[in-house]
């Protein structure tokens, strides 16, 4: 193909006339930009189908959309407070029916925790949390060291379960602390309760544990 690129020859490897350009005709410019967002169309779109069934389906669609919004399945974002309280707002309020999922058909972890905790976001509770998690990690590390000594990769699963057990225990310890706190500060508001989900600490805990143990475990297995 290099031969074609000699002086005085066309830069194309094929006959340009084959794609519809006459001899000496100017080639179109190279397009360097994306096509327009709303290109001109040569043909107008066909009008939509109309008729009784189309109208009915349209009504069904719009009704369905509105009904869905009133169903308990429609989870709204926590609303920001309106600037002015409108008198007419009370006419427009929608009351959503309650929905109790069939828990038998759902994984257990979907169940909301029954025990309503009121663990305030006091520094104390956080502190104990941190400490216990540290202890927990220390425990884990110790266990892994033991594991390494034994050099038994097979048993790691079992160990892991044990560890999880110990974690559960320490979590229960936390709970006790929290309960004590809750007794002291029973008046705490619900909002705070939501903010300060005990699970957060649980996850932190888990993450630490996961990061540490994973590395070590790998070493143990290989």
């Amino acid at each position, binding site marked *: *193909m290099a031969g074609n690129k000699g002086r005085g020859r066309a830069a194309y*490897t*094929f*006959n340009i006339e*084959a*794609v*519809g350009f006459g001899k000496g005709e100017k080639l179109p410019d190279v397009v360097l930009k994306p096509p327009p967002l709303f290109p001109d*169309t*040569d*043909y107008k*779109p*066909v009008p*939509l*189908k109309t008729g009784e*069934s*189309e109208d*009915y*389906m*349209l009504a*069904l*669609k*719009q009704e*369905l*959309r509105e*009904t*869905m919004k009133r*169903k308990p*399945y*429609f*989870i*709204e*974002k926590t609303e920001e407070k309106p600037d002015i309280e*409108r008198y*007419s707002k009370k*006419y*427009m309020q929608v009351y959503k029916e309650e929905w109790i*999922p*069939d828990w*038998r*058909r*759902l*994984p*257990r*972890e*979907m169940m*909301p925790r029954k025990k309503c905790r009121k663990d305030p976001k006091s520094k104390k509770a956080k502190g104990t949390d941190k400490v216990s998690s540290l202890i927990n990690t220390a425990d884990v590390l110790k266990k892994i060291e033991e594991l390494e000594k034994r050099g038994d990769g097979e048993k790691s*699963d079992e160990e892991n379960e044990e560890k999880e057990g110990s974690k559960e225990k320490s979590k229960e310890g936390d709970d006790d602390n929290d309960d004590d706190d809750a007794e002291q500060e029973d008046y705490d508001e619900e909002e705070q309760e*939501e903010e300060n*989900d005990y*699970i957060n600490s649980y*996850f932190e805990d*888990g993450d630490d544990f996961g990061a540490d143990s994973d590395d070590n475990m790998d070493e143990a297995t290989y």
Partner: protein
Amino acid sequence: MTQAEIKLCSLLLQEHFGEIVEKIGVHLIRTGSQPLRAIVHDTGTSLDQVKKALCVLIQHNLVIYQVHKRGVVEYEAQCSRVLRMLRYPRYIYTTKALYGDTGELIVEELLLNGKMTMSAVVKKVADRLTETVEDGKTMDYAEVSNTFVQLADTRFIQRCPMVHAPEDSDTGPPPPAPSLVINEKDMYLVPKLSLIGKGKRRRSSDEDAAGEPKAKRPKRPADNKEIFRSLPVGYNISKQVLDQYLTLLADDPLEFVGKSGDSGGGMFVINFYKALASLATATLESVIQERFGSRCARIFRLVLQKKHLEQKQVEDFAMIPAKEAKDMLYKMLSENFISLQEIPKTPDHAPSRTFYLYTVNILSAARMLLHRCYKSVTNLIERRQFETKENKRLLEKSQRVEAIIASVQATGAEEAQLQEIEEMITAPERQQLETLKRNVNKLDASEIQVDETIFLLESYIESTMKRQ
């Protein structure tokens, strides 16, 4: 899952279940199956809300869960199910056409609620129907449950998988998630329930039904006697005429009805694949016709018919001036309706010594068109939301005024007073509202009609994939 499909799923989830469910759902669609912990962590949503959203998605059969080793439950989104939400109005309409108002309401309730027990459906539908009939009359539960059974018989609705209870429950802790068992035999069987009366109702067993209309029947050839016997009474077609019709249908080049054997006076089958392929091809042809004009459509049909053609042959056969024919051919090539096959004469693939054959790959063209349809619906929904958002204040105002009128009317106000309230919306505002309504209606109707094409193309692609 292409980006266009994900975007469409996101809009559909948001419109039907709100932003939180949308966030979780889209996350699952993008990432595949995930455990609860990972979802909470990656979406930065509170655990409570993630749980709620997952419950909603599972309830509506949009997410399934599976227990993995070590008892971790993983959640997986069913994207194709999410896209089906676009078709809900058509499902409801079809049931209305076939089974009347009762059928319509049954399917509507199931689609709105995802899963329901039969007793709950029957009660709700009977209540809703009672509201519409004249005073004093009521709807009987038995009638509603009859229609319910019919819908299950014709596979418009199906039973949810049963919760499989472990037999020896005292060994070890309970499993992290129930195991659901589908029994193919029972899927369309409705248990005998005594649903009598209007007010009293016995709590039924935990039979659930999921609304997902399906039209699948075992394919099976039928001989002409059988067909004759099952003809509706009012048709007045003699055996002889029927035979003629069947032969004609079997000889038709489209091959919707095929002859699978000669025993018993001829065995006939319906070839769904052929029917769907013809419909998909016709759709492609009409899209070309409407987008590029009838002369392009002529070239397209020509290539379709002759399978492989060289450029010169296209120009000659189509009887269109060479220059224009080239232009049209390249336009369709660049839009991927027509594809190009190179056949080199020599191993160096030199263009001058290569055959260039133009051909139509119906399957890939159908896929491309389907993808465009998803994009179109996405655009339509976005436009509709934009229109509504632009006029939010006005819409809210008109809703408020309507609410006030309704409440004032209830207290028995005078005509003049009502008119005064009505005038709170000015004439230009009224006009703006009218325009908005017209635009939204048009966009909504377009969504429904694009979905019709989506249904056709999806069915064709699915049936082609099954044959391969």
